[in-house]
């Protein structure tokens, strides 16, 4: 990391790791996988220096299970991995939601399916947003588009995780993990959350507590599931964020998340210079998805064009949010097929030119 006054030139992966340290992450558990290995490398140096815990786990299943262990004690803990590694954590994520255990999971996507490749891609939108664990559950998912936003959203991931006692996934792609960009870290901007009412802290002078994901009594699991979903309604009400750029008078609204959105923004600027009314709607929280804001934006548009580095995943949520307010089309490339400014501008020109 290279410092100049308040700005620091830093790789996305290292920025996320540094932000986790600033956020008070006390435990990191991880197993290396490209394109996010710098997170673990950074943590292996810094955590012991700060007297915090770094464990190179024997597998991704072990990593996330250790996060659960730390989380049950109200300790801020994190793991990071990529695509096929995150796939191995799905069962644990479902259990964390059920037992209401906090934890932060950094997912830096590579190309898939299968072991795939290590190229930048967004094929794990469904994996993060819909999940592969069992039962009725949701995790909070945040999607940064710049290294600065990766820092801000890492802070926010720890905050939301502790505040709502839920796993939070930060969903980035290989471009964001590998690129350097100047950022300002500042300080962790959130207040510490009191965990004393629920954390497992040793049962001295109080009744024992249980954080479990098995509830066999009649009606118990239904009540818990309803309560967890009420919590998600509250998260949706309080925490939904998005960026709307030039959408007010747009004929064509592009929807995109993560690094594709920054390319789309440049294409929108170029289209505007040529007199074509394009706009960009970028969900920052993928869960909760900004349904209402997107629906309202789409009402005055002639068309919505969803663009992703995959075969059409967020598309499902875009269609559901737009819900007939405008036709929805899709352009995408999977598994390392990069989407350039010229590609997106061409897509706009084809429809508005």
């Amino acid at each position, binding site marked *: 990391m290279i*410092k100049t006054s308040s700005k620091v*030139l830093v790789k996305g992966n290292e920025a996320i790791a540094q932000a986790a340290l600033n956020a008070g992450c006390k435990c990191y558990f991880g197993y290396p996988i490209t394109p996010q290995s710098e997170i673990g490398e950074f943590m292996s140096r810094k955590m012991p220096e700060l007297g915090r815990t770094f464990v190179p786990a024997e597998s991704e299943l072990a990593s996330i299970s250790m996060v659960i262990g730390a989380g049950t004690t109200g300790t801020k803990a994190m793991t990071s991995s990529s695509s096929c590694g995150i796939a191995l954590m799905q069962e644990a994520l479902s259990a964390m939601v059920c037992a209401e255990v906090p934890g932060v999971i950094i997912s830096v996507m590579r190309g898939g399916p299968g072991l795939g490749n290590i190229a930048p891609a967004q094929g794990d939108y469904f994996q993060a947003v819909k999940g592969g664990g069992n039962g009725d559950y949701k995790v909070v998912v945040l999607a940064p588009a710049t290294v600065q936003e990766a820092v801000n959203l890492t802070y926010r991931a720890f905050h939301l995780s502790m505040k709502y006692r839920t796993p939070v996934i930060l969903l980035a792609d290989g*471009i964001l993990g*590998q*690129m*350097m*960009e100047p950022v300002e870290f500042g300080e962790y901007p959130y207040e510490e959350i009191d965990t004393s009412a629920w954390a497992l802290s040793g049962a001295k002078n109080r009744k024992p507590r249980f954080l479990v994901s098995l509830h066999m009594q009649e009606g118990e699991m239904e009540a818990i599931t309803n309560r967890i979903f009420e919590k998600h309604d509250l998260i949706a009400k309080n925490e939904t964020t998005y960026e709307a750029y030039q959408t007010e008078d747009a004929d064509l609204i592009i929807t995109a998340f993560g*690094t594709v959105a920054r390319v789309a*923004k440049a294409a929108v600027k170029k289209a505007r210079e040529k007199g074509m009314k394009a706009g960009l709607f970028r969900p920052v929280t993928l869960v909760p998805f900004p349904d209402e804001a997107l629906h309202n934006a789409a009402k005055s548009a002639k068309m919505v064009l969803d663009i992703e580095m995959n075969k059409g995943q967020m598309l499902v949520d875009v269609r559901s949010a737009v819900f007939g307010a405008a036709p929805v089309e899709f352009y995408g490339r999977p598994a390392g097929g990069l989407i350039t400014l010229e590609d997106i501008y061409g897509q706009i020109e084809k429809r508005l030119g």
Partner: protein
Amino acid sequence: MDTSIIISGYGGQGLLFAGSLLCHAAMIEGKQTTWIPSYGAEMRGGAANCSVHISDDEVSSPIVNMSDVVFALNQPSEDKFEKRVKPGGLFIVNSSMAKIERKRADIEYIFIPMNEIAAQKPEPVFINVMAVGAFIEKTGILKESSVKEALKSMMSGKKAHLLDANLASFDYGAEFIKDFARV
């Protein structure tokens, strides 16, 4: 104004450092900038590379396809990237390790025998920083003082003893361009 730069060579020639040096100097001047390395299988075959943007506006994508400027520090890089210089762009080639050959009429070539120049100097010379010196002298895209300030902050602590040789390497690159212009 947005300038894209690709720096390519063998691992160990310092191409990632040269890219981050430019990026850091751009940050010192308050410009928008990004850097991204090639990683994984793309690095094999002798053309490891990084891409840099130096811009007055937000950088859309750090990925560079067609580049305003390419530094090719060896033969595989010259072979791979000659076609990826934008028309009207600049192709800086280390002619100590690549052929002097002009396949295109629509780009400007600068051939610098970097390893030969380095071998003639009394102190150790870093060809990556020499290439940066030549590029800055040629284009003026960043101030010499910003690059040297960046070098100073990157060569602190354990690397402080390498600062003078780095500053000298920059100057050798700049001098080559000045002499070249006089010919």
